[in-house]
């Protein structure tokens, strides 16, 4: 068990430097949730259910804009499709684990835990216990995230409503969007999605966003295919 313990602790340590980016983002997420007229305690329960800031804000915003339930679900889940890439990347290292372990580690899968753990896990220096490393990173992230969301929720509830704080929501997504634009195909995907979403502004049931995202993805794939 000594190795399990040391792997767990090294996972926790690997995540700590990332916290500088996590805590402000978690607090902003909490403040953004409050802007959609959700109570702090409900917001915290939702955050624990979903454990994904972007999906939570997208869902709440579409709900306040009275989008149909299926559109809310689809849009918020599309935002989280990136987890599928991480899942595929981690799967070979988790395959001998019990179902309980798999469920736990899957729930704890986040951008940050993946980033903090994948190098260590794939190096295979300690394959017997490397899931403990991921558990350390994942739990550390979960605790830091939910605490900072909680702080944001309770602080946000006390901020004056005439500060236009709801504008922090698009600004947060803007900040997340730019680092994902890395090369020509991703630029094309982003530009095409932006143009289509404006053109599709009149499409009913708030479906414009989904259509624009899908056409953007298609444009990216086609651009990449052409380059080769």
């Amino acid at each position, binding site marked *: 068990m000594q190795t399990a313990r040391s792997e767990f602790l090294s996972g926790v340590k690997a995540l700590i430097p990332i916290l500088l980016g996590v805590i*402000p983002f978690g607090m*902003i997420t909490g403040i953004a949730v409050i802007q959609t007229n959700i109570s702090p305690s409900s917001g915290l329960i*939702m955050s624990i259910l*979903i*454990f*994904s800031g972007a999906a939570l804000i*997208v*869902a709440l915003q579409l*709900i306040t804009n009275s989008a149909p*339930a299926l559109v*809310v*679900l689809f849009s*918020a*889940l*599309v*935002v*989280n*499709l*990136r*987890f*599928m*890439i*991480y*899942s*595929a990347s*981690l*799967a*070979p290292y*988790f*395959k001998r684990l019990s179902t309980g372990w*798999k469920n736990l580690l*899957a729930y704890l899968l986040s951008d940050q835990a993946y980033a903090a753990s994948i190098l260590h896990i794939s190096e295979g220096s300690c394959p017997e216990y490397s899931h403990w490393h991921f558990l350390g990173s994942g739990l550390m992230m979960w605790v830091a995230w939910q605490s900072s969301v909680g702080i944001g929720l309770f602080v946000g509830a006390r901020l004056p409503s005439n500060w*236009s704080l709801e*504008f922090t929501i*698009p*600004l*947060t*997504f*803007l*900040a997340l*969007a*730019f680092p*994902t*634009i890395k090369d020509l*195909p*991703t630029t094309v995907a*982003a530009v*095409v*999605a*932006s143009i289509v*979403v*404006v053109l599709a502004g009149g499409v009913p049931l708030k479906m414009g*966003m989904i259509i*624009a*995202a899908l056409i*953007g*993805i298609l*444009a*990216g*794939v086609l651009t990449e295919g052409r380059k080769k």
Partner: protein
Amino acid sequence: MKIWLIMIALGVGTFLIRISFIALFGSREIPPLLQRALRFVPASVLSALVVPQILTRNNALDFSLSNPQLVAGIVAGLVAWRTKNVLYTILSGMIILWLLQALFNR
């Protein structure tokens, strides 16, 4: 409560995405076309989310520079592009928005 049903479904759905390939025992690779498409998900989805939110003012799209959200969004976009920092992006966008709103109200 409808909102809670949506949240529970969203929680389950997100969990299923997370466990997808882990549950398949690592025996399957992502199909190549899906893998290529997934690479463009963040850029497309986030752009499609942001653009209408920044342009919409009083429930209509407003492309004019008298839309303070548009100006603040452009400045914040430049900051996001140069710094890739969430905090700086939000601070710059909010400060510009507040300045413009203060000027307009006068």
